[in-house]
């Protein structure tokens, strides 16, 4: 600690250069924080999904499965509850902003313990209303919907039997979620599959996917194999997977978010490495005579090495912490501005630890060469300007 003032003073030797470098580090870690939040949103679900599996078509999740599978799945040993859902793909007034809307089984909300918070009276109203719909709080806020209001959705895929595209629903419930990582569910619009099945002209007795709760998560593999065996060699073979794997494959329709985020971060950090590496090299090159003076006074080679490395790490950590703090401030703002379409969770301990690890690694990498140069310098040559 007694060398801190020396490291701090060296860092601010050229204020403008340090500020610009700090700003670039800050920007990189701000981007890291935001992208990590996006990645978390797309990977969320598994915390609550242990013991929950999704059965969808082996060919594609856009392929529907017959409702007749329900009875067979319910009788597979290890299966506790089964529900189902179908992608509807409707929109309200205009195709954008987009929000997910599903036709679901009557027991659907109950399958996801702790995910949907719906007052009991509203849950009862949903069960009793044929054309009732329950919507997420963020979605209700976005469109200023209230309980009892009639809301028409325009079908993007499924026309009505009468040829129309307008599907009328009554808002009978508004749900929330307590899990900040699952805030995206507050964008959902859910209504009865039965109402959908009877009213659509496109398909009958078909569902998009089944949701299966298990007696024991440890039996997941065995149950999955048993369910998939039910439809083996049929025209509707299934693929049973964990909820997280299902969501990942769903998200991969847009693209591999993890890969995209990772690619962007790799490019950003590589650029940062070159930029700050050059800055540190320049800063140390300018200070060679000063480092020689320190050695003349009796500072050991390894102390000089540590001083330069500490300066480099301090620069990156300072910029990185500011960037992450700014990301913490901005994520709720971005969530609010997106009207709930991109409900970014607050940066968690895992993100901070990962960021701190990256800061230390980049700081050490960036400082390594200049520090070695400082350590190896010959006093006499350096003082003579050679």
């Amino acid at each position, binding site marked *: 600690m*007694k060398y801190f003032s020396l490291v701090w003073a060296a860092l601010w030797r050229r204020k403008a250069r340090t500020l610009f470098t700090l700003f670039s580090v800050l920007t990189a870690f701000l981007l890291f924080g935001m992208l990590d939040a996006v990645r978390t949103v797309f990977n969320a679900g598994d915390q609550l999904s242990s013991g929950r599996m999704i059965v969808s078509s082996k060919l594609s999740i856009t392929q529907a499965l017959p409702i007749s599978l329900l009875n067979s799945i319910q009788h597979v040993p290890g299966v506790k509850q089964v529900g189902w859902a179908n992608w509807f793909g409707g929109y309200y007034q205009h195709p954008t902003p987009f929000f997910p809307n599903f036709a679901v089984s009557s027991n659907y909300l109950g399958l996801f313990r702790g995910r949907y918070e719906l007052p009991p009276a509203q849950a009862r109203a949903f069960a009793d209303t044929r054309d009732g719909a329950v919507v997420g709080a963020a979605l209700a806020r976005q469109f200023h919907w209230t309980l009892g209001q009639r809301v028409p959705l325009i079908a993007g895929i499924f026309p009505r039997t009468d040829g129309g595209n307008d599907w009328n629903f009554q808002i009978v419930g508004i749900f929330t979620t307590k899990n900040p990582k699952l805030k995206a569910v507050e964008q959902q619009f859910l209504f009865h599959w039965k109402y959908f099945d009877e009213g659509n002209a496109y398909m009958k007795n078909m569902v998009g996917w089944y949701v299966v709760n298990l007696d024991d998560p440890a039996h997941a593999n065995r149950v999955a194999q048993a369910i998939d065996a039910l439809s083996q060699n049929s025209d509707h073979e299934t693929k049973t997977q964990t909820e997280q794997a299902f969501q990942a494959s769903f998200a991969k329709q847009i693209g591999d978010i993890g890969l995209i985020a990772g690619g962007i971060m790799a490019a950003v950090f590589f650029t940062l490495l070159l930029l700050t590496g050059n800055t540190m090299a320049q800063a140390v090159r300018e200070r060679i005579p000063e480092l020689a003076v*320190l050695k003349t*006074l*009796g500072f050991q080679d390894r102390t000089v090495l540590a001083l330069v490395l500490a300066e480099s790490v301090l620069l990156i950590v300072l910029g990185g912490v500011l960037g992450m703090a700014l990301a913490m401030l901005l994520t709720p703002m971005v969530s609010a501005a997106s009207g709930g379409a991109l409900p970014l969770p607050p940066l968690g301990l895992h993100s901070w630890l990962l960021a701190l690890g990256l800061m230390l690694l980049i700081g050490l990498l960036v400082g390594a060469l200049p520090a070695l140069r400082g350590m190896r310098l010959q006093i006499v040559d350096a003082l003579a300007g050679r």
Partner: protein
Amino acid sequence: MNTMQTTGENLIEIRDLGKTYRRGKQAIPVLQGVNLDVAAGDFFALMGPSGSGKTTLLNLIGGLDVPTAGSIVIGGQRVDRLGGAALARWRAAHVGFVFQFYNLLPMLSAQKNVELPLLLTKLSAAERRKRAAIALQLVGLADRAGHKPSELSGGQQQRVAIARAFVTDPTLLVCDEPTGDLDRAAAEEVLGLLQRLNRAHGKTIVMVTHDPRAAEHATHMVHLDKGELVGAARVAQPA
């Protein structure tokens, strides 16, 4: 063996000292067969034309460089046999350095510059501050402690450098052209300060200079030419 000797107990004993630099395949001898004794409490001026090897000799005495031949004993220690880390520890404990261009760290205040060598000791922060303040007081710059080098004149910067050199109370001060970058008045001030450190505080000083008037402040003068000692004299001091 022609040894330049002074009176009293020797602090520095140099025998058959040689230094040859290599530039590619070419060997450049800079010092050859130098023998020199410096008694504790002496103020030695090393004189000679440019390229005579006086700075090289000073660097070897100060433990900044290692000889290619001969030996250097300072305070009973074979300095030429010390390796990197041991040599650094020895410098920190026994030698104070004053350079022609002051070599203060520009981003630190005068006070912090003087505290630098004390960072290598086990002194507390409060004790370091106290000692640096006393050193600055001794060089007459107590009121400029918070100033950065760029806010001080050349003479003042050199006085800060001298304070930095003696703040650890070293046995030996080595000074490389300490007045080379100063005007006459500032140079006199700095030389007077060195003389006071020598006489009042008993510091042994080895100073390289090409200025005969600066050398007159020393107690002894030796001349180097083409890497060899060619003459020595005791300087007559005013009463």
